[in-house]
């Protein structure tokens, strides 16, 4: 069946101790592993594979790569052929290239971001188990996020030179990886330029999103919470921990998500959000946002664009 869901994000951080403290105490992840290179691996309580976040020590912030999990090992061979046929070069990394992880198909999106696909990651189980489980475990820290849900990549877009890697990525994800489009932002004369897209493989409004910008980068990684009240509580946790909040709790028009945005200690933007918005389906008509109503699409209540949110990324 090909790609199932987001598997992990690998982020660069400039202060490992501060980063681990942030993802453990504010988001509620737990460290599951460290490797000799100083990379730290973490997971959320409701995830069953060994890690969903890799923190790597660096002199800058940003994304190393994002990985999606495919259902079967042979899917990797089939997808390698399709990706190469689409015109994107791939490399098959051997098992163990990342600890506790099977072989990984590595390639770059048209926007330049590194993506990897894998079929196997060590199973460790959720914190409530599989037999007569409680709805949530005791001893959760901070926001107690359920799982890594999606990420948003900033992609180079320059209409004057005809560069639009948002549209290129969207076409690639659809044609090579069978993602489907749920929402899009169309701008410019006649609304002809596809400036942002939200795409899915599961039944949630987005498993990945692309937004046009002057250069490619990471806008945010997002973690899932149950309810609007959990979003509010997450904001309390951030205030308690002196976390830089970018956007206080509000709702997106796009995806209908209830959300809060904030920064990790290296300036990588995080989101905790609730509300699945709607059931995303392949035959659900695509939602389009126009340039004049883009503000409402982003922050539904005020309809105002926030410069630190739209223009700042790592």
């Amino acid at each position, binding site marked *: 069946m090909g790609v199932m869901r987001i598997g992990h994000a690998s982020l660069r951080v400039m202060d490992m101790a501060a980063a681990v403290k942030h993802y453990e105490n504010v988001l509620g992840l737990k460290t599951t592993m460290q490797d000799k290179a100083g990379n730290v691996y973490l997971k959320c309580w409701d995830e069953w594979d060994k890690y969903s976040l890799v923190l790597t020590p660096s*002199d800058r*912030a*940003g994304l190393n790569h994002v990985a999606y999990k495919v259902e079967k090992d042979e899917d990797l061979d089939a997808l390698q052929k399709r990706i190469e046929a689409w015109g994107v070069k791939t490399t098959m990394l051997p098992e163990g290239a990342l600890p506790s992880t099977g072989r990984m198909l590595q390639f770059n999106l048209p926007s330049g971001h590194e993506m990897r696909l894998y079929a196997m990651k060590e199973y460790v189980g959720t914190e409530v188990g599989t037999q007569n489980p409680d709805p949530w475990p005791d001893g959760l820290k901070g926001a107690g996020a359920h799982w890594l849900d999606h990420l948003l990549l900033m992609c180079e877009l320059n209409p004057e030179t005809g560069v639009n890697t948002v549209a290129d990525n969207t076409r690639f994800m659809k044609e090579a990886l069978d993602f489907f489009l749920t929402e899009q932002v169309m701008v410019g004369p006649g609304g002809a330029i596809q400036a942002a897209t939200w795409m899915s493989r599961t039944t949630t409004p987005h498993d990945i999103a692309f*937004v046009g910008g002057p250069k490619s980068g990471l806008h945010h990684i997002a973690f899932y919470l149950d309810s609007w009240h959990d979003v509010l509580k997450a904001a309390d946790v951030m205030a308690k921990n002196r976390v830089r909040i970018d956007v206080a709790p509000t709702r997106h028009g796009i995806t209908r998500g209830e959300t809060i945005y904030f*920064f990790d200690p290296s300036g990588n933007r995080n989101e905790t959000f609730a509300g699945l918005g709607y059931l995303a389906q392949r035959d659900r008509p695509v939602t389009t946002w126009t340039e004049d109503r883009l503000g409402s699409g982003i922050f539904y209540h005020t309809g105002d664009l926030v*410069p630190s949110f739209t*223009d*700042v990324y790592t």
Partner: protein
Amino acid sequence: MIFDTRPKMPVTIAQTGESYPCATDESLLKGMCKLGRRGIPVGCVSGGCGVCKVRIVEGQVTPLGPVSRAHVSAEEERAGFTLACRVAPATAVRLEVAGKFEKPFSKGFAATADRVSP
């Protein structure tokens, strides 16, 4: 701030001539934000995004944490560039704002807007 009795140093933004007091244990950016003042672009306030890039023209600053090399090179650092969110004033400081917001969807659109505006 009325109830903030911490020792402070004056920080002056060269381009606008605006000045504000900043505590010696607080970043130049936080000090500005706390007073509701503007002048230096505010982004992640964590050393990663680079929009608050400044050049220290006069005075001494104390480093508070790592600054992304993607935004301040070693050479720039020697020339006095840093991020306002990562340094506190040790003395009176005069700075030049070097960072700026780069609008998404903007390349091309902004240029077009400039051409048609009076």
